[in-house]
């Protein structure tokens, strides 16, 4: 196959744009995961399902409307609300009771897998039972804003994803470093008993944390489905990427966003080059993020791009 220079150029631009979009979404999703991990110390495998549920909610609500701005806003609100509620429910029903019993981080991780299983497979089961479409997308158009060379294009989803990710990351950082509530979240994570003694209602803080994290997941789920159709396993299929971004970022908000973007770009751009020049199947490109995750965990478990110290290494 002769590699055409224009194809390479516009293909590169296109994959950069798509990588940026995908990466921003990974980063955005990682923000919610980071929030939960920092406040409750749970490596939450059920988080992916909040994203999926939110995407389905956006689909359900927006398809009842005629489309346009109303459908966009309704879909967004529905997604964030469902994400937040799903998140809060999973804590109230599973994680909080276990935490009260003094469960360790591994038990909570297993429990989150259990919650994820229940959520994911009940959605799958319900979809099959009721004959729902297995691929859903909100009834919102994704306008093409600009095309480059006829191959690469910038769409509404590109802009929305990047803006949402950056705004959320900055917002979370400000919340954690500047506001009373955010500091109370950190205090609750740092020393829950002393937080109570200081007059902080840690249960309120915990609920707020889960609601917020779920809403972030919901936002990400909506934006993702706006760009790419969702199926009941979409969230789960992205979960390890989300973890990769959060862990690479050392569970800091800016770190998570930056890592997400790097992973998205790596996946899209390397995938493009590998298939164009090396004729390696693009099916391998997801492996890039997973290998990055494993390498980071092996050699720098405290994160590559981080703003605060975390003690994740074993003592031995």
């Amino acid at each position, binding site marked *: 196959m002769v590699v055409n220079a224009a194809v390479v150029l516009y293909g590169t631009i296109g994959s950069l744009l798509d990588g940026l979009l995908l990466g921003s979404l990974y980063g955005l999703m990682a923000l919610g995961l980071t929030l939960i991990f920092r406040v409750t110390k749970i*490596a939450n495998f059920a988080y992916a399902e909040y994203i999926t549920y939110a995407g389905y909610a956006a689909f359900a609500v927006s398809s009842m409307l005629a489309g346009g701005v109303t459908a966009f806003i309704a879909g967004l609100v529905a997604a964030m609300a469902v994400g937040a509620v799903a998140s809060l429910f999973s804590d109230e029903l*599973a994680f909080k*009771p*276990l935490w009260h*019993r003094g*469960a*360790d*981080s*591994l*038990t*909570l*991780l*297993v*429990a989150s*897998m*259990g*919650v*994820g*299983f*229940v959520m*994911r*497979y*009940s959605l*799958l*089961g*319900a979809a*099959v*039972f*009721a*004959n729902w479409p297995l691929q859903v997308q909100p009834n919102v158009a994704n306008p093409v804003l600009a095309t480059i060379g006829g191959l690469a294009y910038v769409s509404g989803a590109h802009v929305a994803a990047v803006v949402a990710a950056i705004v959320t990351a900055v917002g979370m950082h400000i919340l954690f470093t500047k506001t009373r509530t955010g500091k109370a979240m950190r205090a609750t994570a740092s020393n829950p008993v002393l937080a109570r003694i200081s007059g902080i209602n840690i249960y309120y803080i915990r609920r707020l944390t889960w609601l917020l994290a779920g809403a972030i997941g919901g936002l990400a789920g909506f934006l993702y489905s706006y760009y790419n159709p969702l199926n009941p396993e979409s969230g789960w299929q992205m979960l*390890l990427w989300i*973890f*990769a971004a959060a*862990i690479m970022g050392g569970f800091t908000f800016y770190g998570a966003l930056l890592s997400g973007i790097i992973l998205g770009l790596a996946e899209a751009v390397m995938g493009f080059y590998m298939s164009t020049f090396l004729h390696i*199947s693009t*099916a*391998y490109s*997801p*492996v890039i993020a*997973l*290998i990055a*995750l*494993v390498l980071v*965990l*092996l050699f720098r*478990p405290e994160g590559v791009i981080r703003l605060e110290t975390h003690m*994740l*290494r*074993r*003592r*031995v």
Partner: protein
Amino acid sequence: MATELEGILAQWLTYFAIYGIMALSFNIEYGFTGIPNFGKVLFVAVGAYAAGVLASTLVLMLAAPALGVEVVASGEPSYCTAAAKVVFSQAGQVLSTTTLFAIFLAAVLAAAVAGAATSIVASFPALRLREDFLAITLLAAGEILRLVTWTSVWPVCSFNGISGIPSPFTHFLGRVDVLYAGLSLLFLLAAWFYTEYATNSPWGRALKAVRDDEVAAEVYGYNVASIRMQSLLVGSALAGIAGALLVFYSGNVNAGTFRPDMTFEVIAAVILGGAANNLGTLLGAAVISALLILMNPSSLDALGVTLPQGLLNALPYLKYVILGIVILLVLMYRPQGVIPEGPLKTPIVEKTRRKLREYLARVGGQPGAGRQ
């Protein structure tokens, strides 16, 4: 009806054996040593691949010339070709039961060795990371293997997989599935005896010491790193064997089988039965495999249970919903499992020896001599 029931029973027993071995292996690592090997499916897959590749290569080497089939491969492994499938389907004509059994045993051995060898790679993170991060690492490693082998034609013919690997019971008539269930149960029995013996030995004490307090274990002179590695080595060899048994049960090796869900099924079995308790683990494996078998449209059909079509379609998913609920309920209300961890027992060998002595004493006409 009766034969269908037998079929389900055989299927359940085979699954019980395979999941039982996987669960015992996870129990050694997680229950006794405290290593959450959430990449269990990785080692099962490695074992399955090793067994599948070795068995199919051997069958090709031994049967293709005799059958006069020429297998030409271009870039892909020879056992992935269409000609190879022809050889597999006719291998029974030229290979004796002895040869087929030899191939089976060689494949199982290869699986154990391959599993154990892979564990050396896994021990690298296992010595460095906090539990929950180790779990994520191993889970991701399993996914990498699945995604790569699903796409790459090496080693197991990408998404097509290797199919039609002849069973050691090819020449047997009648209930081959029952025979295979029996064979698998033999392996389970051996694995159970081994783990029961090993975990009740001083080695088992060392594992528990490392699990409960690494610093203290170190102070008492245990080499913590080495013990964690040994635990992974044994666990992974067992997982490899389970993978091999899975291959000869279905005759196929397919990368798509080895999803993280399988690891979760094993975790569920161990947590349900009781971590660090081999008997509990087997109980858990029996329950989970029964759930997997029963929540299946064909099994329900065979049992004469009729359900609405929609529910039947949802059944494969519902079983995982049930699995998830079971896990959550156990973690919340009985975190130690159905049969909790007990104190270390006298090694089973000594126990058997004592029973034997009692028996001999009784037979020898000395009533009560053995009863103390």
